[in-house]
C-alpha cells in the first residue's frame, strides 16, 4: 500500500483465512458508533488491566452499548465493502472474524486511534469555530 492510500479513503485490503477482501472506510453517518466503540475499547482495556487488548477479549469487559456499537460498525463496514452479501452472511462473517475486522476498521478509519481521539476532535472543532486563541 502506498503512503497516501490511507489518506485518500480508498479502503484497505485484509486477508482473512487466505482470501483477500477490500474494506472501505466508514462515513460520518457512523461517527457516533465509532466513538462509542473506541470509548468501549478503552474502557475494556482499563478493566482488563492490559494496555493493548485484543478486540475479541475486549468484549468480555464491555458495556452492552459498546458491544452493540461494535456490531453496527462491523456490519456497516461489511455492507459498504461487500454490498452483495446478505444481512445474515454479514452477521456470520462479522462474528467469526470480529477481531481481525475490528483491528482493521479502527486502523483505517482513524489517524488518531486512541482514547483521546474524541477530545482532540472536539478541541479541533472548537478551535476552527473560534480561532486558535479562544
Amino acid at each position, binding site marked *: 500500500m502506498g503512503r497516501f492510500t*490511507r*489518506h*485518500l*479513503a480508498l479502503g484497505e485490503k485484509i486477508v482473512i483465512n487466505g482470501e483477500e477482501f477490500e474494506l*472501505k*472506510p*466508514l*462515513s*460520518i*453517518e*457512523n*461517527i*457516533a458508533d*465509532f*466513538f*462509542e466503540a473506541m*470509548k468501549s475499547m478503552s474502557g475494556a482495556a482499563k478493566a482488563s488491566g492490559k494496555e493493548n487488548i485484543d478486540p475479541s477479549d475486549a468484549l468480555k469487559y464491555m*458495556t452492552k*452499548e*459498546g458491544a452493540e456499537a461494535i456490531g453496527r460498525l462491523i456490519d456497516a463496514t461489511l455492507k459498504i465493502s461487500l454490498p452483495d452479501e446478505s444481512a445474515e452472511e454479514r452477521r456470520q462473517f462479522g462474528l467469526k472474524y470480529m477481531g481481525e475486522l475490528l483491528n482493521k476498521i479502527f486502523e*483505517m*478509519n*482513524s*489517524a*488518531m486511534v486512541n482514547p483521546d481521539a*474524541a*477530545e482532540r*476532535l*472536539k*478541541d*479541533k*472543532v*472548537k*478551535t*476552527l*469555530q473560534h*480561532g*486558535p*486563541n479562544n
Partner: protein
Amino acid sequence: MDRITELKSRIFNKEKPLSDSDIIRIHHVMMVNYGWISLEEFKQLPLPTLWGLLNEIETDAKREKAETDKIKPKRHK
C-alpha cells in the same frame, strides 16, 4: 461548566454519546470552509477524509492567524 467541558462529557457519557448538535457543528465548519454541502453528501463523507480535511482547515486557520498577527499594529504600553 464551559462549552468544551460540556461537549467532552457528552462524548464520554454513555447515556448521551456524540449528539446531532456535534455533527451539526462539524458540518458547519466544513461548509464555512468548502461551501454548501448537502446533509446527505456530508453524511457519506469517509471518516479518514474528514480527519484529513479538519487538519487542513486547522493548518490554514493557524497560518492565517499568524499572518494577521504580523500586520496588526502593536499596542503601546
